[in-house]
């Protein structure tokens, strides 16, 4: 590749990535040269500003047509734009939570890393959503994973944090290896790593042996990716890691990292397998014939997440299982592959972003104040801090899918997508609704603590400004998208045109 071709690429479509990369680099250098005694909080604010700048530049690209540069390895299509929007929004809010995190257990000395590792992870996630090639996809995945491994172990002198990082690394590497192994089959059959070229090649595969191998690849990729999504069968790491990691990191893992996982899953599955014949008599594409397996994973995830959550006393573990369950609901979207799949996925991930990050902001505040993570720390919160209690109640109601909140509209969307096809996914929908009712138990359990139980101490609460901002934005968004969801749907329809350019 000579300089001329290199310059001829339209680099401006990578502007958000460049901004994040630049800010992350600048932050790491600043951290190096800053005097040791100085607070690193300023780095967090710089990082936040960087993310906002990237967000603005991404919004500037929304009207931009579909474009792909660097030999089709970097794609800017509606899918990439829409999901990068979520990733950046999520990361911005995580950054605000991280700024208000009062360090302990040895994090004081490493505060700078704390901020720019979030940026590095975010960059990985963004590259994943834009990549048109298995190599860039994998590089993005690794960038995200490695940053997360370090972040999880940030509390150096905390034994739980160490345990969590260790479990995360081991489980994560196994899962990544499985994914990679699956990808290698596809590469072996097609001889290319480019998703578009692969899809083109695979439309003409009719050899049964090859189709069998592709099925195997499909399984390995899905199973491996279930690690990032924290869905069955690779969900076991989530509770331990969520509990041990610092709360902002937990928030990052549960929202940004999970969103990235879904982005990756959709990119791979629907680019590679959508046009591959399954070899059965009706000539269905492979992805439709494998639908049931994803549905099975979705069902198992919902059941496991919601049932085990019932027994949790630690609020972060509770939210780990809750987020496993939520990932199960999202898998239902992918398993049903309806007309509304992209819209539904985007909307639910967006709703989930706000309700979960809002809840984590409150969890961070409450648990840090008392030093314990038991649910009973929420006792009497309504007396101590009515605003926090009502905010938490709104997020919990949204997670439980009660009308009036964004979570309900998201679930409505999922149900509709699942029931529209001729062969409706009744079993899956029934499991989802039944487990949702089960989830009332633990979500309302937290509310019972907040509203019914007497407070242990009556100390008044003073909330840091950054947390107040996160909580307020989340409340507004959760209620607004619950009452007037058309704002989001119109935005989707108006700007992304049903993601038709995904397959082009």
């Amino acid at each position: 590749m000579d300089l001329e071709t290199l310059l001829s690429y339209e680099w401006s479509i990578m502007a958000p990535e460049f901004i994040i990369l630049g800010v992350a680099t600048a932050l790491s250098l600043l951290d190096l040269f800053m005097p040791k005694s100085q607070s690193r909080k300023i780095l967090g604010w710089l990082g936040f500003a960087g993310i906002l700048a990237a967000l603005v530049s991404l919004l500037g690209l929304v009207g931009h047509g579909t474009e792909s540069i660097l030999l089709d390895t970097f794609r800017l299509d509606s899918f990439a734009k829409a999901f990068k929007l979520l990733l950046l929004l999520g990361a911005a809010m995580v950054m605000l939570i991280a700024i208000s995190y009062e360090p302990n257990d040895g994090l004081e000395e490493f505060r700078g890393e704390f901020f720019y590792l979030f940026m590095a992870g975010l960059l990985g996630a963004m590259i994943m959503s834009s990549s048109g090639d298995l190599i860039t996809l994998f590089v993005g995945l690794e960038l995200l994973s490695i940053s997360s491994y370090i972040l999880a172990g940030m509390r150096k002198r905390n034994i739980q944090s160490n345990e969590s990082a260790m479990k995360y690394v081991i489980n994560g590497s196994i899962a990544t290896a499985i994914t990679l192994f699956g990808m290698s089959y596809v590469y072996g059959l097609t001889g290319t790593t480019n998703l578009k070229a692969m899809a083109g090649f695979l439309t003409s595969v009719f050899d049964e042996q090859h189709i069998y191998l592709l099925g195997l690849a499909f399984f390995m990729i899905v199973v491996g990716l279930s690690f990032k999504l924290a869905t069955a069968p690779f969900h076991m790491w989530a509770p331990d890691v969520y509990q041990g990691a610092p709360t902002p990191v937990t928030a990052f893992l549960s929202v940004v990292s999970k969103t990235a996982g879904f982005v990756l899953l959709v990119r791979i599955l629907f680019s590679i397998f959508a046009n591959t014949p399954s070899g059965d008599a009706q000539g269905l594409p492979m992805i439709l014939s494998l639908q049931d397996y994803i549905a099975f994973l979705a069902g198992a995830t919902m059941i496991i997440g919601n049932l085990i959550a019932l027994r949790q006393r630690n609020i972060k573990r509770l939210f780990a299982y809750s987020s496993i369950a939520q990932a199960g609901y999202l898998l239902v979207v992918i398993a049903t592959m309806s007309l509304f799949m992209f819209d539904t996925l985007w909307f639910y991930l967006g709703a989930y972003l706000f309700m979960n990050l809002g809840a984590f902001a409150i969890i961070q505040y409450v648990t840090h104040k008392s030093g314990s993570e038991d649910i009973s720390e929420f006792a009497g919160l309504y007396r101590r801090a009515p605003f926090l209690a009502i905010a938490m109640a709104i997020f919990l109601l949204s997670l439980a899918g009660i009308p009036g909140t964004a979570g309900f509209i998201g679930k409505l969307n999922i149900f509709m997508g699942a029931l529209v096809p001729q062969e409706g996914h009744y079993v899956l929908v029934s499991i989802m609704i039944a487990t949702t009712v089960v989830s009332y138990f633990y979500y309302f359990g937290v509310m019972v603590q907040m509203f019914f139980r007497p407070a242990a101490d009556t100390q008044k609460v003073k909330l840091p400004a950054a947390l107040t901002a996160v909580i307020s934005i989340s409340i507004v968004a959760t209620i607004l998208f619950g009452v007037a969801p058309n704002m989001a749907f119109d935005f989707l329809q108006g700007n992304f045109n049903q993601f038709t350019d995904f397959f082009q």
Partner: protein
Amino acid sequence: MNFAYFLSILVFSPLLGILVLSFLPKTQESLIKMVGFLATLPALLLSLIAYFQYRAGANLEGLNEKVSWIQFGNSEQLGNLFSIDYELGLDGFSLIMIVLTAVLSTLAAIASIHIKKEWKGYFMLFLLLEVGMLGVFAAENLILFFIFFEITLIPTFFLIGKWGYFEKENAAYSFLIYNGLGSAVLLIVIMVLFARTGTANIDALMAVMNADNPQLVAQISEDMKMGMLIALLIAFGVKLPIFPLHSWMVRVHVQAPPSIVMLHAGVLLKIGAYGLIRFGMGIFPEQFQSLAVLLAVLGVVNLLYGAFLAFIQTDFKMVLAYSSISHMGIVLIGLGALNEAGIQGAIFQVVSHGLIAALLFFLVGVFYERVQTSNIQNLGGLAKGMPITAGFLLAGAMASLGLPGMSGFVSEFMAFLGLFKEMPVLAAVGAIGIIMTAVYLLRAVLGITYGKAHRDFAGITDMRKFEFVPVLVLVGLIVLIGVYPSVLSEPLTSTLETIMLGIGG
């Protein structure tokens, strides 16, 4: 009554009270109670205006409201499919239910005077509950109906769990789980209908489901229709409740504060009946006919089961709880008869039981406040200490057991008239229940009012001034319906005609 957003204002008017309450200091007890009471008045006033205008011949369609709300998918491709409008409307039946809700809400707000703590939170939830209940009856599409239905769930959970008696949290949880499962089943039905027809509007669904060659997004087989009706029966059966889905309701009746039980027994249970009539009969008339016998049998079982269990209870609240189950059996009997008299009887029973249950539970609140017990044995001789309360209690019991001249008689008479026409043997068995009702109610009420006094009633005052308001209003309405049933039957005429047309009767 043709001013814009009449119904929206009616439904959401209690929110104004919530807004005002949020600015009041927590400690201003009497002010908070006053605001809470006043906030229920606009809805009452507007619903009465609508009722009297309708009686005077005005057209209810003028009240319909429609604003486009949610569009799933691309509107250019899909047109009107998969869009949900915010649409409110009324017919005679829902108008009556709204009036009932508004009246009982105002009276329950008066009864809330007995609430002892955290009045501010209580009244905010109370008013939210009222919004939910009014909305349920005004909703013109299934999704909106479901949203309001769920909105009633959350405040009720907190109202029971925080302001109830000793085992309040258990009661609140069992309320949540039973009703949560019920609404989950309901949601499945609603979503299947919506996904497969592309509309959630009730009238549109009634037309589509009963057309010969309907335009559907995806096919709906006959078996699926039957399945959906059975699911509806379960969903609303939890609410009503139908035996064996009733255990939560007994707990709630006993543990919740009396003012909330007034609303719960008076309105919330009735949503079950309303749903069965509106959606079950309206959308699946053919399938409903084939389930008619089952419904009638369930009704008789409810009637007898409730009556026998009410007979052996020692706690008056338990007697009333089982009596509610028993009386809901009469609703089912009326629906199972599936003729005009039966359905009319069922609707009458819905209203009449709403009023009677509210009256009885209000009286329970009145004497519980003074003697701290609702155990029949400990209450003996109440007439000596509280003659007026005891007198009204007897009146309530008379209405409940169907004394001619009171509303209970009209509804039971019509429901059984309907059933005797269709299934005389079953009706004869059911009639035993009527006798049982008289037996258990008289046993309980006479045990309370007369008999040897187990305690010293000195220093216990009888009903105070404000307590007369709900009692007199309720007794007045019960007698009014009893002697002049046209106040209910006339507004219902057109609704009944539509229903009868649907089931081809």
